[in-house]
């Protein structure tokens, strides 16, 4: 089960998602996205394109809230209490959120002093 549904009606025919979500890179919520906690998980709303997404797991919501402070998406999932075995399923959810621009891959930080 994928833990995300979005209001995009053509989602089911979108084949642009990568096979595997790039867990080991940093991710952020899009700056125009707001998260509203709900009993079932969360509602995500993107002010840029007025798209609403439903996150169907409180753990994934926690992971999304931890994204910005986590060096990698994998760490955000783990710190949200999501066991390794469940990462692939959540990766599909994250891929959906990435496809709909709810989360964006963090630009590599410049570490030169």
């Amino acid at each position: 089960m994928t833990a995300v549904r979005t209001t995009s009606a053509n989602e089911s025919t979108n084949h642009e998602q990568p096979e595997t979500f790039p867990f080991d890179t940093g991710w952020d919520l899009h700056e125009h996205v707001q998260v509203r906690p709900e009993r079932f998980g969360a509602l995500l709303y993107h002010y840029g394109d007025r798209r609403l997404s439903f996150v169907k797991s409180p753990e994934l919501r926690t992971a999304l809230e931890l994204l910005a402070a986590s060096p990698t998406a994998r760490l955000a999932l783990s710190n949200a209490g999501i066991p390794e075995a469940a990462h692939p399923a959540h990766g599909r959810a994250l891929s959906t959120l990435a496809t709909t621009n709810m989360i964006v891959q963090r630009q590599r930080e410049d570490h030169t002093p």
Partner: protein
Amino acid sequence: MTTSTDERHTTPTLIDHFEQGLDAPICMTWELTYSCNLACVHCLSSSGRRDPRELTTEQCKGVIDTLASMGVFYVNIGGGEPTIRSDFWEIVDYAVNNGVGVKFSTNGSNLNAERAKQLAESDYIDVQISLDGATREINDAVRGPGSFDTAITAMENLAEAGFEGFKISVVMTRENVDQLDAFDALAQKYSAQLRITRLRPAGRGADVWDQLHPTANQQRELYDWLVANGERVLTGDSFFHLNAYGEALPGLNLCGAGRVVCLIDPIGDVYACPFTIHDEFLAGNVLDAGGFRAVWQESDLFTSLREPQSGGACESCSAYDSCRGGCMAAKFFTGLPLDGPDPECVKGNAEDLLGNVDSTTTPRPSLDHSRPAAAMTYTPVSITAKPPLAAVAEPRVAPSRSCDESPLAGFARDAHA
């Protein structure tokens, strides 16, 4: 609290959660004024004259503070014609600055080129232009002389300003169902998105319902068009009664009234949905102790709407799981029982019932702000001219803005089940 669906699932589905209500609405409508420069024959809020009790600027800001604290993403502002309020832009700015997005509905009369440019600059403001005919003739018969030209001018201004994806909002009537492709072409021409919603017998809509609601054949035509094109248009999830034809339309197939949807009217009264301005569906007022939050979370009316609803006679119908008995407001204002079929039931189950309704006793709106002097009588347009489609040229762009008056618009059924 359980629903019939719970019996089949160990964990509640999203729809179960929505049926049981959320702590804050997802999509809500706020009508800022009953004042309007038009006098559309089907106005769902019977607007025209300002109500002296309308919320002050400060009271409106207080409502926005509450919505912001509840996590309401955005509000659909309407009226009346909301831009008539002298503090309209101040209220919009206040909402946006407090993290509450705004989509406002307008007839276009205050959208000049300069204003269009300002609006195009904000990600947090969306605009919806009302248009009920793809031609002047069809539109003006419902919305009044000059209203087509006003709307087109506003759309030109928005397009010129680079405001992509604004909405063209159409109430589907007997006169314009066969203009669907023409509306679609207009939307393309202005880089806008088409939004079509159902005519309800609410407000003055009750007066013209018999003349204007789509015929049975037109309902089928509309359904087929939505099956073919539904991914590109917004519907406010307002046609779920048509799901009984077969394949479900995009949407959640759920009456959101008092569960995920509500209306705040210009005097602060909170109703279950935009189409139920009647004491029967009045939950409270934003000026009551506890404000909007208490009305939404604790009112007796909304609590009862979040309990399992009986489908009554409809429960034995094979299509009940698809249409869920249809629209509460449509039933109420046509005098039908709320636990029976929708007046436009595609299985024809409402026909006998409607025949037995005493039209002198059907409920009337509790408030009527119509301007008697401006009253328009609807005269059917005898020749339904189809507009030329020559304007259609560019390839269609997939819509990027899916959330509508109902949050459930465009919801991908089974896409990620």
